[in-house]
């Protein structure tokens, strides 16, 4: 056959795609409806928080603010009253930071070593230990609150920040250990064997081989723990006192105060402020979800 171009009849090249096919309309239609459903409350919160009280009272919750004011935000952060204190959410924010940061670091540090030991160093009783730990993940927290209060009281940590940090660290353990164990189990076992032949021990393998390969799972664990601990209300209200209340508890106290006028704009601003930390974490770490960090270790 010659190199001459043949005349091609009928279908050829990429199949044409219809923009407004029934399939596309269905998929995008559903997505738009669902995202509206989720975004609408956020929209209402933000516009309300930017309105003055007279405008709020007019009742058009969907209408954008006529006159934008940041007064409610300032008040929520610095002046809103809970009980006798009138220094706003700022105190709760710093309390939450002081609770979340050490809890996240401690729980992830311990759980990652746990998971590593369970996955790679199969010691006697490892399975039993793991089963007990996982069982812990299924017991409702409420069951353990009273014993926990007594334990903390005996340790002299009840209503102290340290006590709350300890509680968060302990309760994060089952799920985080499971997470790390499964991640380390999925890593090629030969890598671990090679390091052992190279003479590396428990900690050297952990720090030099395993840690550098586990950025993705650490990001997942950080997101999980920061949002979980930051959003926690139950432990915060039980294991702390007004001076050490985390932000969520304080938010509740501001919003639910029965005295005086309900300042919806301040409440909305306070709520958005409280939710902003987990949101920021999501946005930053989303980019860190780098896959294939471990690629190249095994055949590629």
């Amino acid at each position, binding site marked *: 056959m010659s190199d001459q171009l043949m005349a091609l009849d009928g279908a050829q090249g990429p199949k044409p795609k219809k923009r407004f096919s029934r399939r596309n309309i269905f998929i995008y239609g559903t997505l738009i409806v669902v995202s509206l459903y989720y975004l609408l409350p956020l929209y209402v919160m933000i516009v309300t928080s930017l309105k003055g009280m007279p405008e709020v009272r007019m009742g058009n919750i969907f209408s954008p603010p006529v006159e934008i004011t940041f007064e409610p935000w300032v008040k929520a952060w610095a002046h809103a009253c809970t009980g006798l204190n009138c220094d706003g959410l700022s105190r709760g924010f710093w309390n939450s930071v002081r609770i979340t940061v050490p809890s996240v670091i401690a729980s992830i540090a311990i759980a990652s070593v746990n998971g590593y030991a369970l996955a790679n160093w199969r010691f006697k009783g490892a399975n039993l230990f793991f089963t007990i730990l996982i069982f812990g993940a299924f017991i409702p927290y409420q069951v353990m609150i009273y014993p926990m209060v007594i334990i903390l009281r005996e340790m002299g940590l009840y209503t102290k920040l340290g006590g709350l940090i300890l509680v968060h660290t302990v309760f994060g353990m089952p799920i985080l250990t499971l997470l790390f164990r499964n991640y380390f189990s999925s890593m*090629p076992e*030969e*890598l671990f*064997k*090679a*390091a*052992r*032949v*190279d*003479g*590396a021990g428990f900690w*050297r393998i952990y720090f*030099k*081989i395993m840690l*550098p*390969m586990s950025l993705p799972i650490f990001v997942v664990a950080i997101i999980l723990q920061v949002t979980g601990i930051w959003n926690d209300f139950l432990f915060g209200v039980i294991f702390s006192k007004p001076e050490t209340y985390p932000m969520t508890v304080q938010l509740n106290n501001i919003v639910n105060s029965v005295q005086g006028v309900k300042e919806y704009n301040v409440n909305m601003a306070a709520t958005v402020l409280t939710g902003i930390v987990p949101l920021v974490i999501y946005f930053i770490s989303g980019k860190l979800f780098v896959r294939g*960090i*471990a*690629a*190249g*270790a*095994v*055949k*590629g």
Partner: protein
Amino acid sequence: MTNVSVRQLDLRFGSVEVLKNLNIEIAEGEFLVLLGPSGCGKSTLLNCIAGLLDVSGGQIHISGKNVTWAEPKDRGIGMVFQSYALYPQMTVKGNLSFGLKTQKFSKAEIERRVNEAAEILQIKDLLGRKPSALSGGQRQRVAIGRALVRDVDVYLFDEPLSNLDAKLRTELRVELKRLHNQLNHTMIYVTHDQIEAMTLADRIAIMRDGFIQQLADPYTVYNKPANLFVAGFVGSPGMSFLDGTLSEDGTSFTFGNATVGMGDYDGQQNDASSRNVKLGVRPEHIIIHTEAIEGVTIAAELDIVEALGSESLLWLTSQGEKISALVNADDEYEAGSTVHMEFNIGKSSLFDTKTEKRL
């Protein structure tokens, strides 16, 4: 002098016995290949020697020391894995020096050893790269280098070439052979590839279900397989087996209506426990004639001709038995025709049907 000695080794996982009373002595500088199908326990044995698995019974001695309870790093071994197992976050240089740094060698010594290994394996240009930027063959070279820098007595290879494509495998195989000739270290090499086993080994240990079936040099394994399993496992295309009977005086073998004289047989055919035996003939030990020769050849139907390039493989049927034979690729045969086979009895093997052992 013995370098690695495995004595009465047992290994159980729960109630599953993987290795049982296994004994093997490996001389200094020897290249031993553990060959067998998947699940025969060959990698397990290697892991036991390396100290990555705790044995259930028996002893392991390396360089005259009992290392049964020793940590892998204290056994004086280097190991190369099938999946390379390079540390992905380190450069090639980092990979090579990791073990040395762990053992607290001086900077100069590390530098010297890394350079030496890189020199031998021709990976000097790659020292600054990450494993992900290397090809499969380069990665395996680095993995071998990581074992070499340890400068130990015994090197263990766990199917090191199985992840490579056919061409690279051949290249690295030759390189490994050269490396062994050059360094003369003891090497224990696990593979399921019989060509690697035949070409590399000083001795081959063929394993099945945790037992060593035969431990001998490649020539013996190929030409005098200890039993039916070894005979069938080694050789590609495989040996043909003919069910038949041995005459009372052992001078002839009959299958179907055909009879073969056993006068040239290299073995003890009269040791058979009964007259029921199997004759095993390798494809290259069958000579194909187009004309019958009275008393020498046996007629066969030619089913299929497979052209392999350098030669052709004939699939034959004779007296209800399937037989394959290798012939010169230039000779033309037609499927469906009748040909005449002459067996090279001196190179074939007789097996006792009951014990499956070679006679």
